[in-house]
């Protein structure tokens, strides 16, 4: 059951990131340094993708808390790092970002680092 919660939490966290980026692309991006902060904030708050993404994060957090109440956090923590691979992979697929070998190399080091931290 708890692993189910953890899986749902990871998927929601990943979906949240993809939704935020989709929303940002649809509203043409924000630049709060350029002024017009209120208007930009409104376009953010009325974007269904961005509101959906933030809701995914909130739901992901609740499922994560439910998961770690049942399984060891040293088990849950490294599994969450799967997100680094998923987000990079789907950024490539959905947004056609160019991910070169060096970027994958960096992602691998990060995943290895998170595993080391949570295993000790």
């Amino acid at each position: 059951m708890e692993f189910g919660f953890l899986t749902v939490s990871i998927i929601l966290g990943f979906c949240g990131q993809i939704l935020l980026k989709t929303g940002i692309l649809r509203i043409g991006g924000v630049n709060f340094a350029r002024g017009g902060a209120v208007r930009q904030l409104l376009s953010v708050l009325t974007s269904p993708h961005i509101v959906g993404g933030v809701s995914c994060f909130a739901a992901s957090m609740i499922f994560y808390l439910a998961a770690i109440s049942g399984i060891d956090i040293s088990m849950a923590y490294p599994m969450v790092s799967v997100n680094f691979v998923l987000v990079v992979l789907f950024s490539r697929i959905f947004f056609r970002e160019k991910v070169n070998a060096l970027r994958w190399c960096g992602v691998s080091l990060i995943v290895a680092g998170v595993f080391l931290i949570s295993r000790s």
Partner: protein
Amino acid sequence: MPKSGERSTTAYKLLLVAGVVINSGAQLLMKQGVNSMGGVTLAGGAVATEIAGIFTNPYVLAGLCAIAVSLLIWLHVISRLDLSFAYPFVSISYILILLAGWLVFGEHATPARAAGVILIGAGVIIISRTER
């Protein structure tokens, strides 16, 4: 990398790191908040009192404000940068929270954890070199 965009891209990278630092600070504030309440169980008949307690706790409220700020920074940053470039920077929070454990809460730094911090740091530095 185009010469004209070089300076502003650096600014976006710094902002990206600042956003992750603020988000990590928010997590620590909220942890401090639930600790100061003596833990939250969300069980039994006291759920309403607990939820009211959470949302009136100054640490939790400060943490929520910090999360809102970090979210706006994140939206600003991914307006310009690739998600596959920006997202790995989130792993800096693992380093910061471990450092906070060592420096603020007096936890022990094991060699394996130190090695993990070095690997994550190296990964982020490598990725920071991959934007075009």
